[in-house]
């Protein structure tokens, strides 16, 4: 579980990139459509940071080649990306956002549910 920021520091329509430690790639956390989402930060097509991408509803557009990813599943919805990015669970505890790096290593599978005790 990685602390991201206070919820007031991530307003609707914004995103933030968090380093997830040596073992896991950086993660992008989004606040959009009234919810928080976390996916791997690096576009599965080429080296670009999705936290710098364009948010539209539950989708983020890669800032480099305009591949579109569904934040809920990590699946690309248009070319040039063909591979999904991993999704990660996000929880809020006492006004603090946490991301839970996915235990699974298969991209595109739904993120595991966060531990009950971590959910605010």
């Amino acid at each position, binding site marked *: 579980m990685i602390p991201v920021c206070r919820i007031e520091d991530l307003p609707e329509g914004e995103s933030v990139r968090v380093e997830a430690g040596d073992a896991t790639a950086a993660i992008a956390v989004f606040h959009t459509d009234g919810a928080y989402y976390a996916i791997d930060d690096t576009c599965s097509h080429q080296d670009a*940071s999705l936290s710098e991408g364009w948010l539209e509803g539950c989708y983020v557009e890669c800032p480099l080649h305009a591949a579109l990813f569904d934040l809920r599943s990590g699946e690309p919805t248009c070319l040039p990306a063909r591979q999904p990015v991993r999704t990660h669970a996000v929880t809020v505890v006492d006004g603090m956002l946490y991301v839970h790096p996915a235990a699974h290593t298969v991209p595109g599978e739904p993120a595991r549910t966060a531990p009950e005790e971590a959910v605010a």
Partner: protein
Amino acid sequence: MTTVATVTVVGASLAGLHAARGLRSQGYDGRLVIVGEERHRPYDRPPLSKEFLTGEFPTGDGDPGEGPGRLALTDPEEEAELDAEWLLGVRAEALDTAAGEIRLAGGRTLRTDGVVIATGATPRTLPFPHPAGVHTLRTLDDAIRLRAALRAGAARVVVIGAGFIGAEVASSCAALGLDVTVVEAAPLPLVPQLGEEMARVCAALHARGGVTLLCGAGVAGLRGGGRVTGVELADGRVLPADVVVVGVGVRPAAGWLEGSGLALDDGVRCDQGCVTALPNVVAVGDVARLAQPGTARTVRAEHWTSGMLQGAVAARNLLAGSTVEPFEALPCFWSDQYGARIQYAGRRAPGDTVRVLEGDPADGGGFLAVYERDGMPTAALGIDRPRPFTRLRRELARAPQPAGR
């Protein structure tokens, strides 16, 4: 179009692959043949001048015999879906439109009803012999050779041409710790693309990477017998070099179409929907020269994005038997140099003014600028400003563009 039994895509790179994808996604279920002069399956070229040269890819990727590795644009699953016959390592030599035949190297001919011309472009060379150690960079095999040369103890690299390919190669060589000089014939590189003010900003990136940029420097010759030892400039200076990279632009690979009856004019002439004078022959990507409606202008775009997007449009028009959809995407390109990500979108014309919206071009920390004409935005340029750049790009894509641009 029910008469199409076979479509042949000539060119197995980005644009050709996307045309093939477009044909299948729009319901074409006939025979699909993809002819590629290179031995590789479709792969992505932009990394060749960057991560591929600097060795940031895992070992094995793109090595001879192992294929494009992570540069690959297809995977076995997609190839199965495409259901195409691949003729790789085969050069198309002529198109007989009357007979509906493509002649391949070795004398074989292919009967075809529809043709997608996607043969791309080939690098221009210098007007004198290139000894060993002089490289151009276009294909994966070019990049494999150049990478090997850079790893084989080269210390001094001279890059001829300070366009995007030249600048990216110079940046990669500098990252490898090599001594790099870039030679540019024009007084300032990239002026036609970016205008003088912003071209100056981008030219300054070379200094950031510790690379010497010599502008207004014509090349008079290459020194060295069997192997290059230096570059001789028009003013008599000689720049010592172990490796020379020539990045002086490309020419469209349309020579094989001479005699086909198709209009060739620095590329294959087509209408705004990538359709040539023949409704069953379309052209996409670097080789296609598209009409601009309402003007006498034609445009050939060497942009990755155009190559990708034209495929779907051309496929649709080919299947419809006429142009039912024009290609209207905003021109876009990007470049990574010296740790900076440059992004451009739009249609700047000489005389447009440029206004910085964010950041300061002077301080090296990135910025976002908009080009304007009569108070209307025409293009956007960003360095290390991906998110606001995307916003501006999307606004530009929605905005009505002045006629004829």
